[in-house]
């Protein structure tokens, strides 16, 4: 197995930065293709009129998940060398809640805000600056929040480990859930569209 290439020393940190730039280009490109440079498109998710946030996100997750799984099963890739951010359950859940609130209030997330700025959205620029302020405020107040920030550490933890079920089974479950979600999303969008026609 030769992948992940960087972890096997095929190139160094500096080329890694070039790779970062290239991958970022791909990332930004597809985000904009999906319409995520536009706050109205993003926020529509939470009013059930356009559920593309869910569709794009989970299609991406399923695609990458299947890719990682099969490349690892075939021995092309060493999964244990792919970095997994450690789990801190409580602060991450609180963080998610706050981020979600920020999402519907602001209309972008950090990544999509960059795409918004790149395509001229002034509201994206304002949100972009707000993120700096938020991070700065958090960091300045860090001594006050640090014990919660570091609470409930669980190390690098995967869903197969938590459920004690085989990795492949979780993969299948995620695919099923996503496909079911997509079907549900299509149905909801149709109903919402019909309702707007009626009113």
């Amino acid at each position, binding site marked *: 197995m030769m992948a*992940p290439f960087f972890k096997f020393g095929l190139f160094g940190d500096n080329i890694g930065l070039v790779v970062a730039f290239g991958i970022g280009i791909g990332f*930004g490109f597809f985000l904009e*293709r999906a319409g995520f440079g536009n706050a109205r498109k993003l926020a529509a998710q939470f009013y059930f009129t356009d559920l593309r946030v869910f569709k794009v996100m989970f299609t991406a997750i399923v695609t*990458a*998940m299947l890719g990682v799984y099969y490349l690892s099963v075939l021995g092309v890739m060493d999964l244990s060398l792919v*970095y997994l951010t450690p789990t801190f359950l409580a602060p991450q859940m609180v963080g998610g809640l*706050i981020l979600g609130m920020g999402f519907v209030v602001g209309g972008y997330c*950090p990544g999509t805000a960059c795409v918004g700025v790149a395509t001229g959205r002034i509201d994206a620029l304002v949100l972009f600056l707000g993120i700096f*302020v938020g991070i700065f405020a958090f960091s300045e107040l860090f001594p006050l929040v*640090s014990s919660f920030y570091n609470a409930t550490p669980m190390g690098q933890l995967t869903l197969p480990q938590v459920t004690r079920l085989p990795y492949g089974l979780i993969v299948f479950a995620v695919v099923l859930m996503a496909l079911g979600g997509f079907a549900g999303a299509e149905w909801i969008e149709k109903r919402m569209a019909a309702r707007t026609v009626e009113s």
Partner: protein
Amino acid sequence: METRPAQPYWNPYVAGVGLGLVLLASFVVMGRGLGASGAFASTITAGLNTVAPSHVAGNPAFAEYLKEGTSPLKDWLVFEVLGVFVGGYLSGMLAHRVTRTVEKGPNISTKRRLVFAFIGGVLMGVGAKFGRGCTSGQALTGGALLNAGSWAFMIMVFAGAYALAYFMRRQWT
């Protein structure tokens, strides 16, 4: 003035596959996933470091972005985010979707929209710190890797957004 009309967005599933392949490429080539909020933190750290280095060194929330012997900006995520700008612009240009505008619903003023955008950004910054990432790093990357904390984070993101959606409806609908 922009005379060509903006092209419609791609089929979201196709865009999702594209995004997923980019994420997969990151795993295969670098052994890591995507991210965004970390680049913001590195940038602040770099900026503060020039005027108040001891303050930065003394605060773990900043210090973790310091790099030995080089600027905090020489960071994988910083370069990735620079690429995001370029890629987003490229796609926008190709589709004639680059315009200077403020995205908002019909029932809110531009000024109020921008105030909310700012507040949203602040919340994002705080949430991303507690969450150890944002939708790119935690939800997409961690989601694909079946990271337990990331899935918990992702569910709460949707929960938080839906919870507040009713109160924000004036802004969008």
